[in-house]
């Protein structure tokens, strides 16, 4: 130990605090998963291990409908928000720093700062007006709402990728008489792709898990999986909800793992 560089990991109590934090994060989730295999209806009592609740959730037509709807909304929202976020990221990074840059960042990331319930109520009122005037219902409203709050989640990884990118590559392409579009299509976009995909996946997961905005914006017959689960609260919750939650958790974990693999630095 000739050289003593500062490292947070050597501070006293580091391991203890880290372990406690991990426990606090994962014990509730583990409990939920374990109880999804409980044969007893009530949560506190453990019976025997069973897969019945998974079978029941699988056979439940309402759950099926809500799942399909959730996936549809998340798919559309991810595509729309990623397209917009890519444009925003290009617009804010592929140029010299400009006046009001910070302001633009804040504007784009607004959904991260404004409390979700505020956005939800605002959207409910606005969409309520539009729905009343036009008489047009449909899933489009939910998709637009989700696309809007997903933009910052898609924007951040794309911007991070762009910031690590060499501006001279594009200059080189221009020197070789590539048109703007050609440069973007053949140089910028391919390098950017991992960021775009990561952004899209993050947006997808965020849309899939949303409760508050969906609960307020949804019209008749538009329950998503999370709002369906919320609706079960008044009557006894059964491990079927645990089983559904575990399923939702698996999708989220799969997406996040893919996100991690795509964004990790290749040294």
């Amino acid at each position, binding site marked *: 130990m000739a050289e003593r560089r500062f490292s947070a990991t050597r501070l006293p109590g580091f391991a203890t605090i880290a372990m406690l934090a991990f426990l606090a994060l994962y014990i509730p989730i583990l409990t939920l998963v374990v109880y999804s295999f409980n044969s007893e209806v009530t949560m506190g*009592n453990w019976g025997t291990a069973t897969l019945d609740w998974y079978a029941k959730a699988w056979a439940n*037509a309402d759950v099926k409908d809500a799942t399909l709807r959730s996936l549809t909304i998340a798919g559309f929202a991810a595509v729309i928000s990623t397209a917009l976020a890519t444009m925003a990221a290009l617009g804010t990074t592929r140029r010299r720093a400009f006046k009001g840059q910070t302001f633009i960042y804040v504007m784009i990331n607004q959904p991260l700062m404004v409390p979700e319930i505020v956005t939800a*109520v605002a959207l409910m009122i606005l*969409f309520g007006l539009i729905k009343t005037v036009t008489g047009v219902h449909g899933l*489009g409203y939910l998709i637009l709402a989700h696309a809007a709050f997903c933009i910052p989640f898609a924007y951040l990884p794309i911007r991070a990728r762009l910031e690590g990118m060499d501006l001279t590559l594009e200059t080189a392409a221009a020197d070789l008489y590539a048109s703007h579009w050609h440069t973007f299509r053949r140089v910028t976009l391919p390098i950017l792709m991992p960021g775009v995909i990561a952004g899209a996946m993050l947006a997808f997961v965020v849309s899939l898990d949303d409760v508050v905005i969906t609960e307020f914006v949804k019209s008749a*017959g538009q*329950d998503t999986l999370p709002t*369906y689960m919320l609706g079960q*609260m008044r*009557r006894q919750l059964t491990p079927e909800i645990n089983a559904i939650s575990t399923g939702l958790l698996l999708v989220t974990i799969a997406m996040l793992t893919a996100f991690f693999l795509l964004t990790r630095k290749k040294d």
Partner: protein
Amino acid sequence: MQRLLTATALLLASTGLASAEGVLQLYNWGNYTSPELLEKFEKETGIKVTVTDYDSNDTALAKIEAGGHGFDLVVPSANYVQIFSEKGLTVPLDLSKLPNHANIAPEWKDVVWDPGRTNSVPWQWGSVGIAVDTEVYKGDVNTSAVWLEVPDELKGKINVVPEMNDIVSLATMYYGGQPCSEDLEVLKKARDGLLAAKPNWISMDYGATEKMSNGDWAASVNWNGSSMRIREAKGSVVYGYPKEGYTLWMDSVMLLKDAQNVEEAYKFLDFIMAPENAALISNFAKYANGIAGSEAFMDPAMATAPEVVIPEEFKAAGVFMPVCSEKSREYMTAIWTELQK
């Protein structure tokens, strides 16, 4: 971008035109609508019912007030029925389209929150009373004294459900008042009574169904449906109706002002007031429904259960939570906060 806009517009429009004939949009509490009932309705009328869930009266009210919701029917609790109709969010029912309206049991026809039942039809109702294991306590169970002046046998073995409205109302009635009281003298007695009784309670918690079934608790202030399930698991448990007063709740179906499928809605309302169909609702969610003659079609165990069918002598003591004044709610919250300490 052009294509994107077109696609979005098409998407917005596509499902918008779905208010064609043969559909009905029901906005109801989650896990509360019998799938069997909807299947039967569709088979008989060709109308497909879509159920959308909510988890509180407030959520439902907020969404319907915002407009453009697309729902036809909503199922608010008793104290919200008046709010919906006073705000003009729902419309009075055309009783000539509801021949089965005559099936509403007499005691549910002239309710305080909807005299003559011109705005709402019954969905389900229940009560809050006391479940007591008679192996532990042999005294009178039909009094709030069981939990407010806890007898020795039950000390440290009785639970109270953490429902502010019900608990404060039960206590107020025990000390001679009415729910939503603003009478400080009665409220003070209720508060003192609750605070004095609390050390004798084992907990203020949900989950009586399992904790009493396995004998962890010997008694609990509890809902009737849950108490019935306890009795089925443990035969020595009885459900008491406090003679000083106990609370009732009822959820009723209302027709929304901007309903798109009005004819279908009337068909559904009439349908659920037929005794054999009302029984389907009860069999699914395990609460009574308010339609005379439906007992004949209910699960036999339910139709005769003393938890579901209130014995004649206790009927008068049941009261509905009215819409409380601002002031009385403040008092109630203050008492509740003190009780939670």
